[in-house]
């Protein structure tokens, strides 16, 4: 079964690659905020965003590679990626992460 072809490539695959670029650009924008700040919560937010976009990029990569092997990594980021945000925020709030 063949799907829609664009420029000789399946549309869906082309779309995946295109979305990967968009997500890549999104990551760069996250990086901009991470490096630029200006405030500390901004940087934390940027790191959080980077994590979330990384999940998307991973899943897209999995689709692109037609492999389910990236599932575990994505799962772990989704499940535990917020830990960084939590500890950093907690540190900002109390200057101590475990009280």
């Amino acid at each position, binding site marked *: 079964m063949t799907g829609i072809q664009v420029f000789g490539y399946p549309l869906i695959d082309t779309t995946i690659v295109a979305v*990967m*670029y968009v997500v*890549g*650009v999104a*990551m*760069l924008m996250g*990086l901009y905020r*991470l*490096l630029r*700040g*200006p*405030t*500390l*919560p901004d*940087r*934390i937010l*940027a*790191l959080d965003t*980077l*994590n979330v976009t*990384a999940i998307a*990029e*991973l899943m897209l*990569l999995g689709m692109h590679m037609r492999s389910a*092997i*990236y599932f*575990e*990594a994505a*799962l*772990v*980021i989704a*499940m*535990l*990626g917020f*830990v*960084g945000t*939590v*500890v*950093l925020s*907690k*540190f*900002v*709030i*109390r*200057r*101590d*992460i*475990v*009280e």
Partner: protein
Amino acid sequence: MLEAILAIPFVLALVLLLMPERARRLSAWLAGLAPLTGLALLAGLTPRVMEGEVVRNLRPWVPELGLALSLRLDGLAWMFAGLVLAIGGLIVLYARYYLGERDHMPRFFGYLLLFMGAMLGVVTAGNLLLLVVFWELTSISSFLLIGFWFQREDAREGARMALTLTAGGGLALLGGALLLGRIVGSFELDAVLAAGPQILASPWYPLALGLVLLAVFTKSAQFPFHFWLPHAMAAPTPVSAYLHSAAMVKVGVFLLARLHPALAGSELFFYVVSGVGATTLLVGAWNAIFQHDLKGLLAYSTISHLGLITLLFGLGTPMAVVAGLFHILNHATFKASLFMAAGIIDHETGTRDMRRLGGLRRHMPTTAALAIIASLAMAGIPLLNGFLSKEMFFAEALSIEGHAGMRWFVSIAALLYGVFGVAYSLRFVHDTFFGKGPRAVEREPHEPPRFMRLPVAVLVLLCLAVGMLPQWSIGPTLDTAVRGVLGEAVPQYSLAVWHGINTPLLMSLAGIVGGICLYFGLRRLLDLHAVVTRSLGRHLFMVNIEALFRLARRFTHTLANGSMQRSLLWLVLAAVAAAAAPLLAGEAGLLGDLGTRLAGQGAMDRLAWVLWILLVGSALATLALYRHRLIAVVVLGGAGLAVSLTFVALSAPDLALTQLLVEMVTLSLLLLGLHYLPQRSPPERSLARRLRDGGIALVAGAGVALLAYAMMTSPRDTIAGEILARSLPEAWGANVVNVILVDFRGFDTFGEITVYGIAGLVVHALLRRARMAPEKRMPGPPVPLPVPADLAQIMFPLTLVVSIFLFLRGHNAPGGGFIAGLTLAVPLLVQYVIQGAQSVESRFGFDYVRCVGAGLLVAIAGGVVPFVFGTPFLTSGHADLHLPLIGHVPLASAMVFDAGVYLVVFGGTMLILSMMGTLKPSRKLIAHRGYIDTRRRSPITGEAD
């Protein structure tokens, strides 16, 4: 028998050193036993030696080194052994009465016997290396003896000085002996002595000779190393009498005699040895005149006599050797008795200062008589033994062949030696026994105990006997000794008292007259008592040693100032140098190649550059912002994420997972640590330093990049293919990375979890009892976070499930014990963060330490099970169970090992995090550091300015 002679003193020394202080009498008896039995045994060997036989005793020790317990008793050794034992015996008797109540007698005798044994070892050694061994032992034991009264600064200093010089000489001797052994091909004395021509012809000869002579000159107190001897006089007098007249200082000249066949015979030998000997002779004799201390005078006189002996051996003629050996014996007898007399005087009057002594002949007539006779022997007065050897010396000095200048020099030295010798002997006698009575002494002097005087008497009798009946008394002994050195080339010599009126006799008479004139002339011309002598040698030595110490301190403190920055800098520089050297040496090769490799690159994957920007941007921003630590930590998170994503993109899901999890834990660690550290780094003042470090970092970075690139683009051949192929059929795992971790390279993982567990233990050990205080604290109670807490609570059981999932699947899909362990630990950490440590630990009490221990044991158990099947550690087993209902269940024994990993990782992580999170506060420090003004916190840095 020979071995016994050598062994007895050592054994007895050991016994004595272990004896308690109160066993004075017993110790003296035991100490006396050594020389007595030694002499008896030696007497047993005497006939054989006299017949010219060389008694040998060979026992292997370190054949690889050529070092053997090889003993060799020829005439020379026999003479010296007899000397050492006989005088040693007398010294023991003397010391028994000399030592005071407060002196540790067993220890003294212990050291003394140690020394005696070492001396016997030197003289009977049949192997050059063995000789070195005993040589250094004499240095060490004499160090102990000189420092016997260690409470006294001068004793310590004298001992140190003696050891520094003589042990240093010993090291030179080691070098010399090794060289000789190398030239000859053996260290056995027989071989070495037989190889004289070979040695002289060797290009190494000058060096070997120099090294040996260094040892000789230091040991025998030759100029310019002579100065240690007077300072060694801080030792108890028996020590001086023994070591510094009869025994140790003679070891040097003994060595000259010993190696005479091997080393003598070159111009170099002649000029150096006789030159140094002559100089020493004059320096010692001249200085002796101006000493005020009895022992000082005797010490300088000893230096002078040793110079004489050295000079004789330097001359190298057979007759000179005879004279030298003869003088060794004579000097030993009169000088030992004089030292003992000096000791008696010191003992009875409490002083050895000739300026305070005088008129003692009235108080201790016998001692006085003995001492006067011995002094006359020292002065070389006829009918005493000193005269005979002196005359032989004069005769030799006059008959030097070779350079005329040398003949004149030696002859004049000989004459002056006679003059000075008479002068200082006269001073000794006159200042001590004649004139006005002793001044300012504590007690009325009287004769010492009979047995203390006995050794002196024996020796003085010997002086007389030799002086009057030389052929009868000393003839055989000397003859035996001379044959020991010269073999069959013994010259014709006569030991008569009267040789008729000849030049030597006239020189002697001139010397006597000149000496008397000199002494009284000096007394008249300048007040001898007011002359203050300084030892230039000692001064120079101290200056040099101090300079050495100062140099050492300066060097060390400048270089090793304990700075960690410097330490790391050197490491980086060494690494850069090591990596750069081959690249630069391989010159354009690699770089040129790089160009072609670059050209061969296709279009870069654009997404790779996104990651690159993420990585490089975060890394550089961390660098730029490092002074604001919290910001740097946040930014560093970007780099960590980039690394994880790189792993994912490049086909390494396991790595990505691990990196992500470790990243989170590291972030938590950094923040936990930051709580107790200043929030920012102070600005750096030195631009130069920053530029330097930046330059080094740049070079290092560029270098590693270059290496990495070159590596990635070069072809190679790896064993990985075989691992891939054998992973599934033989290790029953589809996730090859995990299979490597638990099977192929399970031992690495085994070490790795050990490291991990130990890290937990170390952190626990460091923080368990620590009382810490945060930099500054937030005011107010902990903030409750009910909403996140509630959400995290829902997450927790689910994360547990994921953890188990990752563990079970790890062998066939990304996951495994390590990842699963962290997946269990991280959510628990979140609980700590959100709920607070106390809240969690009160409900969820875990002994993380035992968790680590249990994990290690489980892992080991998993690895050891294969022993049952006769296969090595960590061999994986596999079983496919077919259970009803459930069906096919694959079981790999590697799972047990992985379970151990799981436990260690979980336990270790939680141990670290919980310890860091639950530190006990130090009230004192907290009060000191205070609170944060929450209104003044900067949103940019999070710090309160």
